[in-house]
């Protein structure tokens, strides 16, 4: 491989060693072959990744009799919406949906604000204990919620917020993932810019709001979206913290429904599909922005 490339680039470094046109044609043909191979590889990977999701959709659209037929059918003979109708008529799906939206939005908003502030401090300000504090914050990411669940539950009860959305929102918003990302992003903002503003007499809050924040839009998008995704899909803690059926979020609803439906894969998958659809749509609509956001958050 290395030898052929060297030969290809030879014409440029040693003029007249070989006629230009044929070399170019060889290269173009080679490039086309590589492009075809790359496309094929990408398509295969995409199909493998999509297959389970496709199967989920097929199962959600099949009758139970078909599913139990035992005969493997990658392409279903008939499609039905009966699973969706059954799910929607037997469970307060809309209420759960509303709960998920409310909790995810407020948590994400809180996370973004709090982590951006912390990220600024860690990235642009010098103070004693900075490294130690950052390390501690990062370390909290490593703590599985199962380890502290019992204590957390007592705490939430003592604070009088058990049984409300806040019991989920506040502990969930205490996530260090955002600090990590925010610090990395803000490190990329030239310090000269910040110092120039400081010399002009701006206070730290003003520097943050007027110099740093406007540059953070891609970061805001990524942080908000990551938090939204995480909160939307979270289930271990909300399960404990949301006692009443009417406060459930969608993943808990899914678990609840699975308990009710048992072997009814069609109904379970129909609800699973409904519960992931909003995030899938958001992903598809905003993915370009999202990729850019990550690209510009300059993870380093």
């Amino acid at each position, binding site marked *: 491989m290395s030898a052929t490339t060297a030969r290809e680039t030879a014409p440029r*470094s040693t003029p007249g060693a070989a006629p230009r046109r044929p070399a170019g044609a060889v290269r173009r043909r080679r490039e086309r072959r590589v492009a075809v191979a790359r*496309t094929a590889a990408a*398509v295969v*990977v*995409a199909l493998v*990744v999509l297959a*389970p*999701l496709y*199967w*989920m959709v097929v199962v959600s659209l099949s009758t139970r009799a078909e599913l139990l037929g*035992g005969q*493997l059918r*990658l392409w279903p003979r008939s499609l039905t919406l009966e699973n969706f109708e059954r799910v929607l008529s037997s469970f307060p799906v809309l209420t759960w949906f509303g709960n998920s939206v409310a909790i995810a939005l407020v948590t994400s908003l809180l996370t973004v*604000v709090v*982590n951006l502030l*912390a990220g600024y*401090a*860690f990235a642009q*300000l*010098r*103070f004693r204990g900075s490294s130690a*504090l950052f390390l501690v*914050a*990062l370390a*909290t990411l*490593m*703590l*599985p919620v199962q*380890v502290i*669940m*019992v*204590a*957390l539950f007592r*705490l939430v009860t003592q604070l009088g917020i058990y049984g409300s959305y806040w019991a989920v929102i506040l*502990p969930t*918003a*205490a996530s260090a993932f955002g*600090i*990590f990302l925010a610090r*990395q*992003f803000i490190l990329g903002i*030239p*310090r000269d810019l910040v110092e120039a503003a400081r010399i002009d007499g701006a*206070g*730290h809050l003003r520097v943050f709001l007027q110099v740093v924040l406007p540059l953070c839009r891609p970061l805001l998008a990524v942080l908000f979206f990551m938090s939204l*995704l995480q909160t939307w*899909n979270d*289930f*271990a803690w909300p399960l404990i913290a949301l006692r009443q059926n009417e406060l459930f979020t969608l*993943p808990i609803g899914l*678990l609840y429904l699975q308990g009710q439906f048992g072997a009814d894969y069609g109904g379970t998958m129909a609800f*699973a599909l409904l519960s*992931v659809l909003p995030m899938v749509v958001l992903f598809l609509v905003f993915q370009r922005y999202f*990729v850019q956001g*990550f*690209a*510009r958050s*300059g*993870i*380093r």
Partner: protein
Amino acid sequence: MAPGAPADVAPASGEQPGRRRRGRALGGSPGEALAAYSFLAPNLVLLGLFVLLPLVWALWLSTQQTDGFGAATAVGLDNYARLFSDGQFWRSVVNTTLFTALVTPVAMGLGLGAAVLLNGALPGRGVIRSALILPMAVSGVATALIGVLVFDENSGVLDGIIRALGLPSVPWQSGGAAAFASVVLVTLWWRLGFNMLIYLAALQGVGPHLYEAATLDGASAWQRFRYVTVPMVGPATFFLLVMNVIYSFQVFDIVFVMTGGGPQDATSVLVTYAYENGFVTRDQGYAAAIGVVLLVLTLAFTAVQWRTNRTRDLTE
């Protein structure tokens, strides 16, 4: 102006070490420290109240013998001593480590591969990229339920395909190694998108002029990958390494729903084992001790990573 835009990638990372060294030497003014702590306050309050306080409580709990209903007797380090002779605990340590050691490099390797594949011009690039990141949007519970649907030994679609091809079916549920593999595969499916996305973002920060220069210098495709791509995505690699390890140490939803830790503890990991002790057999002191071990493992890893990364920042 945008930070991390192609042109300022190299200068920015070259500049950082000097600045940090300066920062440490000066320490900052008292006013700056005050401002810093004000900015940190909301986060510190949340973390302190909802993470560190319960953690201290859990540490205390790990020295207690309790049925979980309040009444507790202090047993010192007995819970930790019990861990040493507990076969399932060691099995869970090995499984957790193995899971992490498999998922982290493979997910990152596949993610980088897919990102390189999708970084250039490609017909249908947007569609393919969408396909790869879709699993990210699916919740852990739903992912695991899909996993059950695919890997069921009797009616699962995967063994159906394998049998249709005339191959012997794989005991995804009754064979320990196969069950472990099924959990790893489902996790890779779920995590690939995130790894690819981060690498894709990092690759967009690599200027095409670097590749052109390397090509002019006679570098082969592999050499370009090895000596341009890999170093340029270094920060993303570090970020992903930390994220993947954290995630792998905490894997719960998928194991819990797909295999329940079986067969014969073949897929039992520390978090599911802690959960089993804490919430099923209600041996909460013991469960807390398992949690503390998990925490110590991850802290050790972070400390090592932090040190290596800092050294790299300073030397490169």
